[in-house]
């Protein structure tokens, strides 16, 4: 097993606004199987956060249990991290987010951790619109326990064992749309050109940003008959269009044909440009997205790309009117404002 990564990097690596290179965003060397899609997702997260010039200490990585949930060790080695109980990452993330609204929350989960043991937790994080990016590294099997079919495995799909899966799959993207997620996308670990801008947009989105990333399990689910292997996914891939993420400070220099591009401005002023591949998609309309997902599925296609977003959504802090400062920054003066304030409150209740 690979266990040593040389310390040397390319001498001409680009530097971001903070003066960091990509190396400052790396983590420990991966212990996953060689060729695992999850490692590509880790690399995409590293690249996206590097490009966004976010300081590593401003990020909290949260995960549950599983191959996917191991990956936060393999990126952002200088960020905060929390490995929760199986399927319980959403509640830990919610709590952390409530305590410190200034941090950036990256939740990493898998199909087992989200669609099976953590389904109840997942749904509530979605409906509360917790301000976080929630990534599912979806390989359709339980790789850590030798590749049993998972709840997202397509009916009829065969893993390495050779038995067709008899159960209907849970489509997490559709579930998220129905529960009111305010940013929904699907992608493929083998397509970083699509994935990196989506991660950048998801991190910049104010509210619950969900990305379902198909991530082949090379060891147990990359065989003929599987619908989540590299070859099958590449053959059946369709995209809503290409996505470009432009941070607030930059201007878009490329010009595109009018009518095909759609711009969505995020709360921080950055812009998501969607160059549509399918004219019938309205990314502000949940029903449009749900219909399109079904239509493509009927044609045996996997629809990827940005599916839905609501840039003006109200996140959990706004909904319940929490402190607008992180709790850790509240002083004794803030928390015990004194007798006079107490008197005023009491007076207001009389």
């Amino acid at each position: 097993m690979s266990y040593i990564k040389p310390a040397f990097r390319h001498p001409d690596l680009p530097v971001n606004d903070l003066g960091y290179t990509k190396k400052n965003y790396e983590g420990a060397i991966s212990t996953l199987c060689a060729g695992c899609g999850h490692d590509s997702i880790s690399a995409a997260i590293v690249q996206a956060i590097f490009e966004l010039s976010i300081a590593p200490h401003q990020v909290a990585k949260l995960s549950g249990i599983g191959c996917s949930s191991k990956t936060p060790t393999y990126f952002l080695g200088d960020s905060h991290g929390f490995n929760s109980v199986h399927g319980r990452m959403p509640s830990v993330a919610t709590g952390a987010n409530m305590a410190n609204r200034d941090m950036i929350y990256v939740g990493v989960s898998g199909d087992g951790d989200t669609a099976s043991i953590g389904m109840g937790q997942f749904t509530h994080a979605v409906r509360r619109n917790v301000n976080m990016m929630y990534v599912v590294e979806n390989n359709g099997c339980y790789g850590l326990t030798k590749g049993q079919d998972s709840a997202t495995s397509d009916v009829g799909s065969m893993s390495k064992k050779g038995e067709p899966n008899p159960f209907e799959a849970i489509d997490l993207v559709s579930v998220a749309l129905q529960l009111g997620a305010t940013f929904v996308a699907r992608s493929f670990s083998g397509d970083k050109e699509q994935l990196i801008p989506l991660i950048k947009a998801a991190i910049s989105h104010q509210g619950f940003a969900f990305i379902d990333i198909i991530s082949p399990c090379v060891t147990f689910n990359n065989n003929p008959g599987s619908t989540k292997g590299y070859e099958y996914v590449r053959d059946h891939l369709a995209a809503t269009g290409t996505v470009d993420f432009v941070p607030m400070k930059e201007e878009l220099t490329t010009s595109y044909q009018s009518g095909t591009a759609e711009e969505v401005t995020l709360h921080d002023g950055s812009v998501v440009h969607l160059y549509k591949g399918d004219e019938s998609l309205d990314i502000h309309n949940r029903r449009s997205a749900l219909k399109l997902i079904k239509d493509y599925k009927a044609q045996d296609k996997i629809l990827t790309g940005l599916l839905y977003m609501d840039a003006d959504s109200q996140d959990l802090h706004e909904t319940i009117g929490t402190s607008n400062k992180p709790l850790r920054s509240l002083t004794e003066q803030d928390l015990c404002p004194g007798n006079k304030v107490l008197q005023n409150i009491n007076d207001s209740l009389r």
Partner: protein
Amino acid sequence: MKPTDIKDPEYFHKVVDCQYACPAHTPVPEYIRLIAMGRYSDAYMVNWESNVFPGVLGRTCDRPCEPACRRGRVEDEPVAICRLKRVAADNKDDTEISARMPDIPARKNGKKVALIGGGPASLTVARDLMPLGYSIDLYDDQPTGGGFMRSQIPSFRLPETVLNQEVNYILDMGVVTQFNTYVDSLQSILDKNYDAVFVGTGAPRGRDLDIPGRRQGEANIHIGIDWLSSVAFEHTEKIGKKVIVLGGGNTAMDCCRTSMRLGADSVSVIVRSPRAEMKASPWEIEDAEREGIPMFENHVPLEFVVKDDKLVAMKFDRVKAVYDDSGKRSLVSLGKEPVLIECDDVCIAIGQDNSFPWIERDLGLDFGKWDMPMVNSVTFQSTNPKVFFGGDAAFGPENIITAVAHGHQVAVSIDLFINGEDVNKRPAPGVTLVSQKMGIHEWSYDSDVVNDVRYAVPHAEVQLSLKDRLMEVELGFDQDTGFAEAQRCLNCDAQTLFVEAKCIECDACVDICPTDCITFTTNGTQDDLRTRLSAPANNLAQDLYLSNDSLPTGRVMIKDEDVCLHCGLCAERCPTAAWDMQKFLYHVTKAGQ
């Protein structure tokens, strides 16, 4: 861009930067690994086969390999390749080495070859031809073999024992030596009916400086290379208290350091050009400065000042270097008062030239520009098909390792020529490429890249070494430091091979590569591709390794060879073994192989 043809041996040869840069193409990573394993005799023999004088070169080589070393592009300093070579030579088992010398056939093949000059080029020709049964006569005007290695390189840099041992490995093969014999006529040699004649007489004439006072001061003005030679053969044993050395090359460095050892109190090196343009190797300048020798730049000699028939000083004009648009330099006087520097002796070390007064001009051997013989740069044959040139005698002053490289090629030519074959049909290099895989994630070489910075070679105490001309200044690495320095080698000969048919395009190699060498993208022109890779690919001297376009997505794999660490992680992280680390061994084919 077209897919890379990895079947062309030169492609992977170029990836082994050190070996490619070495004129003799010594397989450097191969012997460095052997040193790390403590197999010093094996490491020595790998060297000896290729460069013939590992002990000499491990101390004196111009090291073209080191500026080429990939490590120098990854961090600040290249691997100390030259001094590692010395570790092999210092620690070899002499008895074992003698036993491993090639067998010399008792029955000769009846062909006779004359070698004129006893330096590295001639000795290399002898080394390659003796095992094939040739009878060889070697002529030299010195009392013993080695040529400039003996007369020009002071003993404090190259002890005589080291030189003698390596010269004798060859002479002991049964070379018939005619020492103390100055050949004053090529005709007389040709008259002896040799089947081939090799001229390896070096560039024996030191340049003089014709300025006022030269003749009057004659007794105390020395031509650098002649003076060094006279010191080496102990005809000269002392020099004045104040010495000026003119010139900025390695000969100047040897002259000034030798002067310090022959009783000079103060020695100054004075150079016409700016210091940055001095030709001496940086480490030789450093060594001279460590001994307290100052260097003065931008001083052009005007005059030798002679008083009462004795040299007392030199006058210099101060100049500055001015460059025109094409970068051509001229030294422009500052118009200031000349500088007077007192001296008792002066060594002129401003270059050396070839000189062939002993070659008659009616032998069918044509001379061209600058009165140099016309020599084919591949076959080393002159226009007289029986006569071959090599070393400094062929194309002007170079260095030992170049002379050795010439010697090997000359031996090939002579062997072909005498056997009636076409000398232009050069033998192909010997190449092997073998997978290094031992387990799923294990390689037979140490793929871990250490972070150590270059180790410094220890030196003898300056005060002690200045007292003894024969005391070696550099002490060489001990075995432990040699091991640590050897570990800095990146094993560039463990090549990364890519097999398109096995690749599933999972990106694992792209993601793990520490130096972002690998990219999968759509094909384009080289200029275009270089802008689209995972990391900047601005080093145009380094190739891009391109797959064919048979990958499932129709993209191509592109690997920028520039800063690949050869750590093998791409191959370790590849689920289908589409990447494999294979050891590439390239050796220049020698005569008779």
